Structures are given as structure tokens and as C-alpha cells.
């Protein structure tokens, strides 16, 4: 191949080497800037009294007034409490059950059953919340749900107006979230457990250690990095909720808001239903800032405890 000979490291040669690569990244970069970074600047909306006739840039600054309005409402307390409490429950339950199921699955001797269990726990994760909402409705529909029509009568109980009474939903939503989400963490723990050197267990058996001791002294310490990483990520996201879970499954029923309204649904309803841009954007900024601080904080904590497991 004939080429004009250039000094190695010359500008032209460097350009020839790197320019095509930057060109490759250009479409993706443009999308990320548009989709992710520009909305970050859009957070100024929360500090303005948005008047669309003036446009966003021309609207007046109102400082923290939107935030004052937001936190003066009872809603602010309710959505914060709900968001955090649900997430704490989710984290604890998914952690405990995820590890438990992972240990069981890894220990099952029958290979075919092992595969069945692995597929089974992952399966609900693949469904959309809309479908999950339909399934929950099939169980709890007040007129013809299987619970009211078949299960409660078996115990001689009267039907319950599930979609009208807020008090049942923390239990329902925690159960649904675990049903749907435990497979994700479980899979990660399964692969972590798979990486443990079997000689540890053999040595422990020789020493007469029972199953429980083995789990406590070998399995858990060995998968600790995965546990920390996952839990850290989850805690960082404690201010965020699965919008589908809290909007679709309760079918957006107003009577359940006291136990099903979270920050994400509040922002959505404030924006789309009431057109209240001020409050919903304030809630959104509140969520983003606090959420970000929590990620930084939890990462800092982990750095102190075990440096190599921190995200950054």
C-alpha cells in the first residue's frame, strides 16, 4: 500500500488515528447531551414562575418560593415518608430473600431443578408493570377478584374493598415488588457464590462445621463485595421509586394516595394532571439533589469501610 510518509506522531497522523473514533462517538454523545444533560439545566424551572408566553428563559425568578409551597403541604411529608419507607423495606427484603434463594439454588443437587428455579425467579422481572397491575387486579378486584370471590369466602370472611382502603397497600406493594424484583439480586448473588473456592467448604466440613456455620463464615464473607455494591446502589436510589409499581398497581386510585403516593407519582400527577409546574419541578429537584447527595454519602461510607468496593 502506498502512502505518503509522515513523521510519526505528526498532527496529521494523530488526526487520522483519532478523528474517526471521535466521529463514531458523536451521535451517541449528541443524544446523551440532549437526553440527559440538557434537562439537568432545566432544573432552573423549579426556581422560576414559568409563564409559557414568556418562555422558560424569560420567566421570572422566584427563588425558593416553589419549594416553600411544596414543603408547606402535607403531601411533601407523605411522599417523602412513603418513598423512603418503601425503599427501606424493599432493600432489606430483597437482600435477605435474594441471598437465601441464591444459597438454596446453588445448593440444589438436581441440575434440572436448579435451572427451573433460576428461570422462575427471573421471570416476573421481565414483565411490564402494566401486566403486573392486571394480575394484581385479577386477585384483588372488588367485584370479581379471586380473593374476594373464592379465597375469603373459604374462610367465611366478607369481601374487602381493596382498592378503596389504603391500609392494605404497603403489604401488597412490598409483596409485589419483591415478587417481581428479587430475581435480579438473586442472579448476581448466584454468580458470586459460584465464584467461591469449593475447598473452603471441604475444609469446613472436615472441621465438622454445620451448614449454618458454613454460610456465616464462608459464603457471606465471600459475597460481601456484591452485597455492598448492590446495597450501596440501592441506598443511593432511596429517593427514587418504580413509577410503574406505585401508579399502575394501585390503578391510580385517589383513595389510596396516603400509602401509595411517592415522589415520582407526585411529580407526575402534579405535572400532567394539575399542570402545576412549580410544585412538581420543585419536587423533582428535591429528589435529584437529595438522591445525588445520598449516593455520594453512601459511597463515602463504603470507602471508609472497604475501599475497593466503592463505586468511585
Amino acid at each position, binding site marked *: 500500500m502506498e502512502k505518503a510518509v509522515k513523521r510519526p506522531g505528526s498532527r496529521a497522523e494523530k488526526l487520522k488515528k483519532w478523528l474517526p473514533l471521535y466521529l463514531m462517538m458523536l451521535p451517541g454523545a449528541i443524544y446523551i447531551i440532549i437526553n440527559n444533560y440538557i434537562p439537568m439545566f432545566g432544573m432552573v424551572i423549579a426556581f422560576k414562575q414559568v409563564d409559557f408566553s414568556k418562555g422558560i428563559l424569560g420567566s421570572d425568578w422566584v427563588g425558593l418560593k416553589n419549594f416553600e409551597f411544596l414543603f408547606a403541604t402535607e403531601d411533601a411529608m407523605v411522599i417523602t415518608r412513603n418513598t423512603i419507607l418503601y425503599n427501606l423495606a424493599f432493600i432489606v427484603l430483597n437482600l435477605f430473600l435474594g441471598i437465601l434463594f441464591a444459597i438454596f439454588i446453588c445448593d440444589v443437587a438436581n441440575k434440572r431443578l436448579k435451572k427451573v428455579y433460576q*428461570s422462575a425467579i427471573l421471570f416476573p422481572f421481565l414483565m411490564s408493570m402494566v401486566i403486573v397491575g392486571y394480575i394484581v387486579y385479577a386477585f384483588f378486584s372488588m367485584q*370479581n377478584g379471586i380473593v374476594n370471590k373464592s379465597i375469603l369466602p373459604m374462610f367465611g370472611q366478607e369481601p374487602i374493598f381493596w382498592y378503596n382502603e389504603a391500609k392494605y397497600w404497603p403489604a401488597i406493594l412490598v409483596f409485589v415488588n419483591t415478587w417481581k424484583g428479587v430475581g435480579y439480586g438473586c442472579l448476581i448473588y448466584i454468580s458470586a457464590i459460584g465464584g467461591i473456592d469449593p475447598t473452603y467448604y471441604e475444609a469446613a466440613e472436615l472441621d465438622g462445621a454445620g451448614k449454618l456455620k458454613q454460610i456465616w463464615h464462608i459464603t457471606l464473607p465471600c459475597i460481601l463485595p456484591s452485597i455492598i455494591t448492590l446495597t450501596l446502589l440501592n441506598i443511593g436510589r432511596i429517593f427514587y421509586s418504580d413509577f410503574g409499581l406505585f401508579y399502575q398497581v394501585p390503578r391510580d386510585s385517589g383513595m389510596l394516595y396516603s400509602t401509595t403516593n411517592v415522589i415520582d407519582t407526585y411529580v407526575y400527577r402534579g405535572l400532567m394532571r394539575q399542570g402545576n*409546574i412549580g410544585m412538581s419541578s420543585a419536587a423533582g429537584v428535591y429528589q435529584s439533589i437529595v438522591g445525588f447527595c445520598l449516593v455520594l454519602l453512601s459511597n463515602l461510607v463504603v470507602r471508609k469501610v472497604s475501599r475497593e468496593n466503592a463505586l468511585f
Partner: protein
Amino acid sequence: MIKRNRGYQALANIVMLLVTLMVVLPFLLLFMSSITEENTLLLNGYSFIPAKFSLGAYEYIFRSGEKIFRAYGMTILLTVVGTLVNVSLTALFSYPLALKDLPGRKVITFFVFFTMLFNGGLVPSYIMWSSYLGVKDTVWGLLLPNLLLGSMNILLTRTYFSTSIPDTLYEAAQIDGASQFRVFRSIVLPLGKPILVTIGTFSGLTYWNDWTNGLYYISKNTDLYTIQNLLNKMVTDLQFLAQNSSNMSSDMAAELSKVPSTGVQMAIAFVAILPIILVFPFLQKYYAKGISLGAVKG
């Protein structure tokens, strides 16, 4: 880990069998109610063993389910196009990022990673996409927001490209004078196929299941509904009916009574998840692998 302790095996299996049952039963209920005769459904409620079977729901879909067919087609189109673009953009972005001596590599990686930590929220996103980019009531509103490219996919792919494709291959290609695009096409893509299939699986599933883009951006042009949007709309309509049946004009009631019957709703839901059920055994391997890869710090 080989553990022949009988009691423990029994315990593990019993627990996991219960779990499997709790996973399978709800979907069985869904399917059963789609083949239950409509009046039985209303009388006896949802049940695992219908008193009367009927394929009427599915017959209805095939005969007069024009909206449903269109929604299904929309879902398929969106999933195919969206996934192809997502995988392409990801691959193109990740290859340069995988090269260890790319100038600005750390900065660009942080640029991508930061989006996982912090975002602007729904309000600015919505206002940007609908008022400034005008995607409301268009197919772009389903395709573009949030799903077209994601940092998770990029980091997974970059890690794979940089660890599983030996540097020596890149160097050899460069000595031979191959252009970067040539390297990408002939080395990276073929060798990167496993990870590309994995992120394709992630992306495809996300597009298939997405209902929020339709919820946010499609209000008037209901021809653009995907199956998930259709299912969502039916719930909204039913809730509206339930809460407003007293103070509604007869015209509105007639309009809203076009909501399909319960059995048909269940049939549509089942039809929406059927492709996932069918494809799942083949894709499970890639999906599971991707999840465990994602947990390893990139």
C-alpha cells in the same frame, strides 16, 4: 458446592418449589381468565379452574381487534427499530472508549457514568421533549426519550470490548494500515457479538415493555399506541367509569363502554406477554449473564 445433607436438600427444594409456584400461578390465572366464558367471569370471578371455557375473547380479537393489531404492530416496529439503533449507537460509542490510549478517555467515561448518578427529573425532560423538540403525538415520542441509549449498556459494552478483545489485535490491524471503521467492522463487531446480543436483549425488553413514553407523549393520536399503552388506557378508562358513572352524559357512557370486556382485556394482556414467554428460554442465558456482568464494577 456439593451438599448431600438430605434434610437440607429437602428444605431448599421445598422453599424453591413454593417460590416457583408463586411465580407461575399468577400468570396461569391471567391465562385462565382469558379463556373463561365472559358471564362466568363476571359471576364467579377470576378463577384457576373456570366453570365454563370459551375462546370468545380471542375470537373477538381476531375478528374486530383492529386497534389491537395496530398496537401490536406498533410495539414490534418500535422494539425492532429501537433495539437496532440502541445497539448500534452503543457499539459505536463503546469501541473508542475501550481503547486504553484514547485522549480524554477518563473524562468521557465520567460523562457517561455521571448520568447514572444524577438526572434532571421528569419535569425538565417532559418540557424539553414536548415543547421544544415537538415529539408529542408522534412516533418519535415513543422512540427517542430515555430508551435510545443508556449508560449501563455503554459501560457493559466498553468493558467487554476492552477486556475480551486483545490489544494485540488492534495493534496488528493498525500496523496493517486498517482504518478505524475497518477495525470496527471486521474485528470489534464479530468478536463483540456476545455482549451486543446481551445489550440487545436488555434494550429489546425495555422497548417492548415501555408504557411511560406513550403515557407522557401520546394523548390525541391513539393510533400510535403500543400494546402496553392500550392496556394502560383500558385501566384508566375503567377507573374513570367507576368513579364517574353517576354524573356522565349518555354519549360519554357510550363512548367509554367501548372498553373491551374483562375476558378480552386478559386476552390482550396474555398476547402482550406471549412473545416474552416464547423467547425467554433462548434469551435467558444472555439476560442473566448481563445482569451479573453489570454488578461487577466497570
